[in-house]
Structures are given as structure tokens and as C-alpha cells.
């Protein structure tokens, strides 16, 4: 053998600081586990078992602490590149904490796939459920389920930045990867101040809604809107999550509670930066904003269309038809997923509109999922320009948003995102159909498409068996796994996860 042997193939060096990334994940797991104290209190009040919460509480803190220490780096070392993996892993880990109580409780979702599905559905504020029988679960478990949505709504990382002051060089990038919408908006010079303010607005609105719901419950005790339900529904309204401890969702309550919840769903589906400005005296902040106006316009138009369909096909009066239509459009477009009626039995036209609403979503910087109104506006603006330049090839037509010209890169980003979103949705729907077919599980094409759209858009309810009053419990476990993945990738808006699948991310 010659000494000048072939040089060993050069392995690409890993360019991602995995240890700092893990350290961040450990740190967040450690603190997030403390949230399990809340259901412990509920369990004490209702006399439920404490075991499902205390074990993950202890294990979570110890494991988080251990990972953070063993990683040997500080979470502050997370840079721009690590933000992608950091956010993706944090959300996977959070769902593990979320799943533990369901597994330990031994109910109908104690299998890992089911528990993890339910937990991912919680933190991603989806609201899709695999609980075959909600009434079989304890108050504490259902409270935890609602709480995971509230925590996930404004964002786990945003919470970590606000509470822990963890914002190294990658702080802005972390926020960027987690925040819904194309661009995270800083309200203050310091990232931590922004995170704190956003959470304060979120908490403030939540307190207002909970108090209002509780008062409604006190005035009409027959409704069943007690303090527990007021808090649980507040958690899932403000986060546009949609879990309800009631098997009949919002149908269980009167029109006053439904109206309140509808109004707050609209608020939660709008940009929280607008509410921050409103609270600070700029009362015209929301009405002046182009995206907000577009959002309201779409809500009104879709509600009217569904209302007309209901008026034509049901016995409901004008008020009933348009009221139900508006509630359901708001609920699905803001990606909350509450039901005031079993809309799965509505006419095909109404279902089609609701299906479309699932793709739209709320505004950037809200707690809602799906594509978001801003991206749709940008893509439409870009399309309209293409039509105009067909006639006037030399015309220079910047697309404007709130009177300001939008960068070309942002336009391309919006169109690319919509394309990726639809492709991911289509692949997900196809996989669900394929898996169910292999299992001999009968599922229509529309049902599969709704299942994919409702999970990638973090909406929640499906149609058919998985309708708003039912659950995805009967779906094969592989289909549940696909849907869990869709919830995760949908909540983080595709890019941070798709980036992880590229060689360029890890090695270059």
C-alpha cells in the first residue's frame, strides 16, 4: 500500500451549534414543566389524582436541568442559525411534557401516539382531539389541555424570552421563527420588552374575557358557565385553540357567551401589536391597518355566504342563520375551531366556504394559524401586478401595504409560502388517504382533505366522524402521526422545519 493513499473523504463539519441548541431546549423544558403546577391546583380542588402532573413536573425539571448542563453551552449562545433547530426542537419537547399527564392518567388517550397528538394539538392551538369521550376525563386533565393552548398561543419562546430574559444573538431569530406571519414586529428597542408587552396584552385580554364569561355564568346559572369553564374557554379562545371541556363545544352555552367568545376570537385573530397600540391610546390603530380591514372584510363576506346557504337550506330564521354562520366562519377562519352547532352536517356549499376559511387564518402577529391574511393580500397584489404588466410591460408597480411599498423579497416570500403550504397540505391529505385505505378505514377524499387542512392550519375540528362533536380517535395511528407532524410544521410556518431538511443548513 502506498503511503499516498487516497485521502479519507472529507466529512462536512457540522455548522450548527447543537449543544447550545439543546441547552436552550433544556432550559425551556425546565421552566415549562412548572406550568404543571396549575392543574395540580385544579386537581386538589376537584379531588382528582395528582400523580399524572407531579411525576412529569419533577421529571421535566430534572431532565431539563440535566440537558441544559450536559450540553455544556448556555442558551444565550444560540445564534441565528441555531434558532431554526432550537424552535423546532423546543416545540417537540414541549409536546412531550404536554403528553405525559394524558399517558399517566390512563384514560382513552394513554397510548403515546394519542397523548402526543393531543399535546401537540394543545401547544399548537389546533384543538383537534383524539379523546373519544371527553366526559371520561377529569377536570384537571381537561384544564391542562386548555392551558397548553393558552401557553402555546402567544408562543413558548416568546414566553421564555419575556420571563427568562434569554435573548442572545439569536433572540430576534428565535422570535422570528416562532411568531405567526412573515415578519416579527418589534414594539420596543429591547426584544425582552416586546415579549413582555405582547404577553401583558395577551394576559390582559384573557382576564377581561374570563371575567366577562364568569359574570355571564353568574347571571344565568343554568348555562353551566362556571368559573372553571370561563377560564378554560378563555384559554382556548385567546389562543384560537378551540379545546372545550364540554362535549358539545360552545353549543353548551347561551348566545351571550357565544357572542363574547366570537368577539374575542376576532380580537385574538388580529395582530396583537395593534391591540398594544390601541391600549396605548392609538384607538385608530386597528381600523387604519390594511391587513385588519382585509381580515374583517373576509370574515363579513364569508359569513354572509354561509348565512345565505343556511337560510336557504335550514329552518333557521335570518338572525339564527347569519348568527350561526358568523360564529362558525369566525371560529374556523381564526383557526379556533369552536362549534356553536354541528356544522359538519351543513350543506355542501357552506362546508366548502368553511373549508376555504381554514386556509386563510387570521393576521400576522396573532395567535391564529394557517396562511394569514397578510400573505394572501401580498400574493393577490403581486398577481394583480402581473396582470397589469401584461398590458404595460414597462410599468413599474410596487405593491403597497398600508401605503408603504413592500419589498420584492417579501412578495416572493408570501407567494412561495402559499405554494409550500398548499403542497404540504396536499401531501398530508394524500398520506392520510393512503394510510386509511391501507387500514381498510373508510374515509372520503373531502374528509381527508379537511383532516389535513384542519391540522396544518391549527384549526381543529374535521368533518364526518371527526366533526366538531366527534374526534379523530378512530383514525389509524399512522394517520395521527402525519397529522401531529402537520400541526407542528403548520404552527412554525413550514420554513424553520423545511430548513432542517436541507444539507445547506447543517453543513455549509
Amino acid at each position, binding site marked *: 500500500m502506498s503511503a499516498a493513499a487516497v485521502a479519507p473523504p472529507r466529512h462536512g463539519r457540522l455548522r450548527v451549534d447543537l449543544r447550545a441548541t439543546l441547552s436552550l431546549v433544556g432550559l425551556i423544558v425546565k421552566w415549562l414543566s412548572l406550568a404543571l403546577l396549575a392543574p395540580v391546583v385544579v386537581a386538589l380542588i376537584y379531588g382528582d389524582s395528582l400523580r399524572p402532573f407531579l411525576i412529569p413536573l419533577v421529571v421535566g425539571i430534572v431532565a431539563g436541568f440535566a440537558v441544559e448542563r450536559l450540553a455544556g453551552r448556555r442558551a444565550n449562545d444560540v445564534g441565528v442559525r441555531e434558532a431554526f433547530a432550537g424552535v423546532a426542537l423546543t416545540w417537540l419537547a414541549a409536546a412531550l411534557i404536554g403528553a405525559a399527564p394524558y399517558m399517566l392518567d390512563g384514560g382513552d388517550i394513554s397510548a403515546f401516539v394519542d397523548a402526543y397528538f393531543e399535546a401537540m394539538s394543545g401547544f399548537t392551538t389546533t384543538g383537534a382531539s383524539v379523546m373519544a369521550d371527553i366526559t371520561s376525563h377529569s377536570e384537571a386533565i381537561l384544564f391542562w389541555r386548555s392551558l397548553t393552548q393558552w401557553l402555546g398561543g402567544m408562543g413558548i419562546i416568546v414566553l421564555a424570552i419575556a420571563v427568562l430574559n434569554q435573548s442572545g444573538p439569536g433572540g430576534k431569530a428565535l422570535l422570528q421563527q416562532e411568531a405567526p406571519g412573515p415578519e416579527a414586529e418589534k414594539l420596543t428597542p429591547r426584544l425582552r420588552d416586546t415579549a413582555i408587552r405582547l404577553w401583558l396584552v395577551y394576559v390582559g385580554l384573557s382576564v377581561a374575557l374570563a371575567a366577562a364569561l364568569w359574570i355571564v355564568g353568574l347571571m344565568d346559572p343554568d348555562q353551566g358557565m362556571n368559573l372553571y369553564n370561563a377560564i378554560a374557554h378563555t384559554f382556548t379562545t385567546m389562543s384560537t385553540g378551540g379545546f372545550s371541556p364540554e362535549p358539545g363545544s360552545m353549543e353548551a352555552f347561551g348566545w351571550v357567551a357565544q357572542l363574547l367568545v366570537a368577539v374575542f376570537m376576532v380580537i385574538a385573530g388580529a395582530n396583537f401589536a395593534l391591540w398594544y397600540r390601541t391600549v396605548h391610546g392609538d384607538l385608530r390603530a386597528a381600523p387604519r391597518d390594511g391587513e385588519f380591514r382585509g381580515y374583517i372584510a373576509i370574515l363579513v363576506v364569508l359569513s354572509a355566504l354561509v348565512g345565505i346557504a343556511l337560510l336557504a337550506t335550514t329552518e333557521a330564521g335570518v338572525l339564527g342563520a347569519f348568527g350561526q354562520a358568523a360564529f362558525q366562519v369566525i371560529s374556523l377562519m381564526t383557526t379556533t375551531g369552536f362549534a356553536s352547532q354541528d356544522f359538519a352536517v351543513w350543506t355542501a356549499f357552506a362546508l366548502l366556504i368553511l373549508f376555504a376559511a381554514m386556509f386563510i387564518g387570521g393576521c400576522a402577529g396573532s395567535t391564529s394559524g394557517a396562511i394569514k391574511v397578510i400573505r394572501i393580500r401580498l400574493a393577490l397584489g403581486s398577481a394583480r401586478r402581473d396582470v397589469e404588466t401584461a398590458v404595460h410591460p*414597462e410599468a413599474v408597480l410596487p405593491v403597497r401595504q398600508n401605503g408603504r411599498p413592500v419589498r420584492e423579497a417579501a412578495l416572493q416570500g408570501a407567494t412561495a409560502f402559499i405554494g409550500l403550504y398548499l403542497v404540504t397540505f396536499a401531501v398530508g391529505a394524500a398520506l392520510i388517504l393512503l394510510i386509511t385505505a391501507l387500514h381498510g378505514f373508510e374515509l372520503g377524499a373531502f374528509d381527508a382533505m379537511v383532516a389535513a387542512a384542519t391540522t396544518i392550519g391549527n384549526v381543529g375540528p374535521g368533518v364526518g366522524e371527526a366533526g366538531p362533536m366527534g374526534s379523530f380517535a378512530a383514525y389509524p395511528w399512522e394517520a395521527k402521526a402525519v397529522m401531529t407532524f402537520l400541526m407542528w410544521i403548520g404552527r412554525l410556518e413550514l420554513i424553520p422545519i423545511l430548513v432542517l431538511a436541507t444539507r445547506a443548513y447543517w453543513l455549509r
Partner: protein
Amino acid sequence: MGTSVVAALHAQHDVTVLDVDAEHLNTIGARYDVLTVAGNGTSRAAMQSANVAAQDLVIAATDRDEINIVAALQARALCQGRILVRTSSAEYLSAWRAGELPVDVMISAENEIAQAVSRALGMPGALQTDMFADGRAEMVEFEVHADAAENIVGRRIAELRIPDESVIASLIRADRVLIPGGNDVVEEGDRIVLIASPAASREWALRLARRDVQDIQEVVLVGGGATGRTIARTLCGQGLRVRIIDANEVVARLCAEEIAGADVFCADATDTGFLQRENVGRADAVICCTERDERDLLISLLAKSLGVRIAVAVVGDPDYVPIFERVGVDFALNQRLVVAEEIVRFTHDPRTRGFAMLENDRVEVLELEIRPTSEVIGRPFRDRPLEGAIVGAIVRGPQVLFPRGDDALQAGDSAIILAEAHRVQGLELAL
């Protein structure tokens, strides 16, 4: 810019020129009888060596706004005189208007040009218009055509039907400036200078305009530089439909982003295929303000050949102005001349309010407050109290009068006076 100002000022004033470019100073020093000092206007030492403390007026007119402002601030600290700053920024201009900048006058070349273009388009047929007395009186110059709506060629001034609120201030024939009497006869190609109320000048415009001239509604602007954008913004603000053409992608994009009301095209305006495709010939006016004068000329003529009625060119070289107008460009405007006019206005007696230059500064129109001790007070205009000058309008409190032979000036009046430039200083003393 400075050279034009020096050219306009050196004859009547003691001028000191401060410039970093020593060679440029040599040229100026050789051409004009002025003192030149080499140095940076932002430097306190240079300011002192130019003896700024003793000056009545300091003009900061370099091409860079920030240098001008810093120089002005230095001057403010050193001297009691008035300070005039040239800027190209609309923001600095509005800051000055809001009283946030401690200078007496701020002049924007772009703004002055835009105003000049707007005036030219607003009064089709007029060669030049200038406002006086807060817009209550105007100076307008028309050319007399035989094919005008009302043909006045060959008629005596006394025979003309002169609207009440107007005065014929001057007739300009070839190179002669006449202060007209009733027996003077109007000839084809004469330029008639009027001082009139806005309504009366519009009446004159309708009478003297060629029959085919109509209102301007659609404008094509070629060249999206700082001047072009300011013009576009001004015209858009007046409700005109403006299309901007610039061949540079970055500039075109900037125009489209800055001026939401205008349609912007990234194209070569000499491309006749493009001009036809976008129906440029249907526009009422074309305004050319590219960086290159020869392109401006070519595009103006191209547009006119396609059917555009009025061509305006913003010319870089003041010497080209008459040539452009001779070959068919309706208005040739030069930034330096326009700004120099503004600057010269402030070198006048502080009583001078409005000011305009005609015929390359051979004739000036100024608005002047009459001193109570002036000897012309009470003398009727029939007696021609002012040698080589004519009073076109009198601002008396809230009223603006357009005097006839029996009228006379009173103490406290302001008069809008047309005079030959070399008589202006004497006139200011007499009044």
C-alpha cells in the same frame, strides 16, 4: 449654482465667494469683480477668513444640503446679516417653514422648478408667470400670435379691450423693452407683459392663446431624478394625471414607491415603439428633465411629433434656454436661473416682498413697500412719476388695485413695479 448667483449679484453688490475648489475660484475671480476665498464653508476658520461677520447676507448654495445647513449654522453664530440656504430636500424645507431651522430663507431648486413648471402648465400660452401679493396679483408674459383667439396684431394699445383688473406693463419686441403708451402698435411676435388679478390673467390667456390650446390634464414626465420627482409630486397634488418614464430601474422603482399617484414606466423615452404603445402622444404635455440636455431636446421634439401639445424641458445649461425655445420646446427652464432669481430677490431692499426676472434679468418685476416720505406719493401716474418703470398694481390693505392714469400712490401702499434691471436700485431709493 453659485456661479449664476454671482453673475446675478456682482454688478450691484460687494460679493465674497467661498469655495473649496481653488481652480473654480480662479475662473470666477477672472470673470467677475468679486473677492474669492478658498476654504470649506463648514469650517469656522474659513468663514472668518471670508469675513462673514461683516456681511449683510450669507448664501449657502453648495450641492449638498447638509454642508449648506452646517455652513448656515456657522454663519448664524458669526454674523448678524440674513442667511439664505439652498436645499433639495422637501423635509428640510418644511422644517424651515415650521421655524425649526435658524435661517432666514430656504430655497429648494427642485421646488422652484416644480412651481415654474406648474405655472407654465396652469396658464397654457403664457411664457412666464409669477405670483405677487400672496397670489392676489400675477405677472404674466404672453407671446402675440396672429392665430390667437383674439387677434390683436396691428392694433394700438388704446384700442385694446383691457380687463379691469389688469395693466399692460411692457411690450418686449426682439431685444427692446418698451414701456407702452396708448399709441404703441402691437406687432406679431411681440411679448406682452401683464400685471393682473388671477381672473383677469386667465381672461387674457383665453384671448391670447392659440385656438387649439385647452386645459392640461395629462402629463408625461421623463426623468425621475430629484427634480422630476418634485415636479411629479406637485402636479399630482394638483390633480393632474402624471406618467413618469425613466430608463433606470432603481430610479423608476424609487419614483413608483415615492409617488403613489403617478404611473411609472421603466423604459427608454426615445424608443418610439414604447411611446406609441403607451399612447404618449395623447398626453397634453411632456416634461423632460433627464440629466442630459440633448436627450431632453430629442424627447421633447419626439413627443411633439407624436401629438403632445406642450413640451417643457428642464435644461442644465442656462445658455441653451433660448435655443430650446427657438426649435420648438415651449418652455425651457433652467434650475440655476430659477434659483438665482429666488436668491436675487432676497438681496433686494428688505421692503421688497415679491420679485421676478424677465428676459434673462434685463427686466425685473418687484413688489415694494412705499416709504411715507417718498416724493412720488400723490403724483398721478399720467405724469409718469417713475422713469423707466411702470406700476402694475397697488396693494392697499386688503385691496389690490390695478391703477389707471388718475390713480396715485399713497403712504403705506405696496406697489408691484416693472422696471429695467439697472434702474431697480435707483427706484428702491426713490420709493
